[in-house]
């Protein structure tokens, strides 16, 4: 019975709504934008955006599943790119030093966020709002103090370009491979290892989870480290790819990541969701964000179209989640 394939049980999975939303927006833009949207350059245009966003969106999704939120990623993306640009671009240190320092800074901010969240009863939204501004201010202040500018060029050696910031076939950012690999690791750990089960339990009922012997505090801190470091990593890849870093970038990652996660079927209040769902949600967001350039719509309407389509995607998700919850086997 449970081993058999059933269409109904597929529909009840957390990623069902996200997948159908993805297909719907893809169809929408093929209709209004033509098939060029599905050719190499078209696919690259949303896959590249999805990859950059997806690496941040998955840990944000995990935090949301566990009942927390991290908006400091908005400052961590530019912090990552500025760290590598200042150290390796401005001061000329080896790029590996810059990359490690950027990731190390991510770990540090993540630890700080995590410790404050578990040690105090302050909601993580507020804690990370604080670190968002603090990191922003630190990066701006240090950048101006050390380099007297807010935009720093970076020339990377070939190996770093090849690993973090190059194009495959002149179209696909190499970060796509990182994204796919990380997604596979996350799927395995979250959906197949016990620790994944613990994260869902934490989001469902933190007290019960702790009573069941789950190290909720340690897990929370790890998740914050993961999100801050992932954001920093994306920043590093951006700086290497675009040969430049700006203090002012990154804020849109906060909203875009949260939207992708919610479109991907994660419940805002925690306890429900899936990595594959977030993966689809991120692609859906990227398609909606980039698709308009393939259509003849007036560009001034793009924000409106993005907003409406994302709202529809979320509503569809809600419908599927209700289906999953209200499901009970047929009366015998």
């Amino acid at each position, binding site marked *: 019975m449970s081993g058999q394939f059933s269409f109904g049980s597929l529909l009840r999975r957390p990623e069902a709504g996200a997948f159908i939303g993805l297909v719907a927006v893809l169809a929408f833009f093929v209709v209004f934008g033509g098939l060029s949207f599905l050719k190499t350059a078209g696919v690259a245009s949303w896959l590249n955006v999805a990859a950059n966003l997806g690496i941040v969106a998955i840990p944000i999704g995990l935090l949301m599943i566990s009942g927390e939120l991290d908006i400091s990623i908005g400052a961590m993306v530019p912090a990552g790119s500025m760290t590598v640009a200042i150290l390796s671009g401005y001061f000329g240190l080896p790029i590996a030093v810059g990359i490690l320092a950027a990731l190390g800074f991510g770990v540090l901010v993540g630890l700080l966020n995590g410790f404050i969240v578990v040690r105090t009863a302050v909601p993580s939204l507020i804690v990370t709002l604080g670190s968002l501004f603090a990191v922003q201010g630190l990066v701006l202040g240090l950048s101006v103090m050390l380099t007297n500018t807010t935009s720093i060029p970076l020339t990377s050696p070939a190996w770093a370009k090849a690993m973090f910031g190059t194009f495959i076939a002149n179209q696909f950012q190499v970060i796509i491979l990182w994204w796919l690999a990380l997604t596979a690791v996350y799927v395995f750990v979250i959906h197949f290892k016990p620790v994944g089960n613990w994260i869902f339990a934490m989001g*469902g009922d933190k007290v019960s989870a702790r*009573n069941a012997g*789950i190290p909720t505090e340690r897990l929370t801190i790890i998740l914050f480290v993961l999100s801050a470091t992932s954001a920093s990593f994306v920043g590093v890849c951006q700086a290497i790819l675009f040969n430049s870093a700006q203090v002012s970038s990154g804020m849109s990652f906060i909203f875009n990541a949260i939207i992708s996660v919610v479109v991907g079927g994660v419940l805002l209040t925690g*306890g*429900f969701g899936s990595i594959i769902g977030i993966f689809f949600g991120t692609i859906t967001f990227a398609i909606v964000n980039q698709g308009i350039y393939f259509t003849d719509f007036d560009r001034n309407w793009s924000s409106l179209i993005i907003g409406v389509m994302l709202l529809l995607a979320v509503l569809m998700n809600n419908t599927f989640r209700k289906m999953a919850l209200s499901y009970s086997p047929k009366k015998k």
Partner: protein
Amino acid sequence: MSTPILELENVDKSFGPIHVLHNISLKVMPGEVLCLLGDNGAGKSTLIKTLAGVHKPTSGVVRFEGKPVVFDNPKQAQEIGIATVHQFGGTFPLMSIGRSFFVGVEPTKGWGPFKVIDRKKANAVAIKAIQDFGITRIDDGDRLIGGLSGGERQSLAIARAVHLGARVLILDEPTAALGVKQASHVLRIVLEAKKRGISVIFITHQVTHAMAVGDQYAVLIHGSVAANFYRGERTREEITDLMAGGEALAKLEAEVEN
């Protein structure tokens, strides 16, 4: 006579200057259902938290199988077999039955870093455990907890605690929010647990439920045991009065005398 599985002797608990529990002495035998009765604020929740390892007694002794025990945290209490099930506690509405059942103690298969949750086994064990308690309606371990009725969820939580080795079950108002039919599911599970030799400390407001499953009754008033008696020693009316805090009883007696 055999040793009580859990025994409290002159247990006091105070938080600073506030004395919550006074001189509590109770005994629970294996396979016995102790109904803990009392009005709100009588000290019931402090008492069960003291048993579950959340609080330490200020003075007095807690004995488990005759040996004095002191718990530093709830986990230690769980490890020796004292499990507290709060209303719907230990179940996660948006998780599947199988996954929820094994949170924290997931059965795994495979090797090294590739050790993964054995979903089939988890589902099968969970379903068997709950069906053994007589809830046969649940047969798919992939269903979400949120789709179960309140009684089924409570039953699942109890089955989980028993499966994980509980020898004393503390049930905190398990029937409070349930309808008559749902509550009877839970009461049946209490009796089933008793049949397996598990002791149950059952906190409730509903005399009917207490009468249905209780072997022993303790009434808490203002942090003291006001009455402790066995099944059949008091009538339903007497118990009701006791639960109302004893005041109704006192008033009644006064009226009779006059």
